[in-house]
């Protein structure tokens, strides 16, 4: 498989978010088989309803808004992570069957299955003798 299959998309550089929350690039695993491309993205704190996946031509974009959870009556004294939004785009090298994309968010991990579009079978043309 010489083709890398996926490239991070370079679009929207410098554009600022309108929400006052940091936008993170989710940590992603990408692997492929003969039939499909699989992505696993870490989106902790994101509700399944707040995930948006779009495939525009060959650019796959995944966005997610995390729900900021503040325990009632508590104040933060030590912090190592922040709540925020997630966004990441990939440019797909291969043609993907957009209708067949499967997405599943479980325990803050988003699984995507992108089946490859089957190439049209070669047709032999019958030549009529005149």
């Amino acid at each position, binding site marked *: *498989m010489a083709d*890398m*299959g*996926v490239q991070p998309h370079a679009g929207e*550089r*410098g554009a600022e978010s309108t929400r006052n929350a*940091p*936008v*993170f*690039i*989710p*940590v*992603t*695993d*990408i*692997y*492929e*088989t003969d039939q499909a491309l*699989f992505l*696993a993205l*870490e*989106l*902790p*704190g*994101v*509700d*399944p309803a707040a995930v948006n996946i779009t495939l525009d031509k060959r650019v796959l974009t995944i966005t997610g808004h*995390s*729900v900021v*959870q*503040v*325990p009632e*009556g*508590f*104040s*933060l*004294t*030590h*912090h*190592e*992570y922040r709540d925020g939004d997630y966004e990441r785009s990939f440019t797909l090298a291969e043609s993907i069957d957009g209708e067949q994309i499967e997405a599943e*968010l*479980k*325990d*803050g*991990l988003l*699984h995507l299955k992108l089946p490859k579009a089957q190439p049209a079978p070669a047709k032999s043309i019958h030549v009529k003798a005149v």
Partner: protein
Amino acid sequence: MIRYSPGLEAWAEPLATLRRIQDEINRAFGDQRWTPSAEFPPINIWRSPDGVVVTAEIPGIPLGSVDLTVHQNTLTIKGRRDPEVREPEVSFHRRERTYGPFSRSVALPFAVDAEKVRASAQNGVLRIDLPRPEADKPRKIRINPL
């Protein structure tokens, strides 16, 4: 005397270039949550007079496979992250997630009653409620007039 002062325009271009480089670097490193050297899971600690709440990001790990122990004033979060590859023969393009066993201990400001500890997880965020024992709470002392 003629003072040579290059106009501001001369500076605008190199600054714009620097800004663009900074943006690129931020994009490459700053925005990414991925900090391989950092301990896993990243935790936030919340306090109130009634106790402590520890939250941790554990994407991809169900609550059932997290092992929580409380010993006196130490909370330990243990578990294992396994690669979730659902197909037998795959070729990887990107492997940014990290795998393997993890363990983290947190020292709490009071000894916790293990029976009263509650843990829950939602969308990959673990929440552990550690109430402060009654005996440890500050008591108000009434001053009686003599």
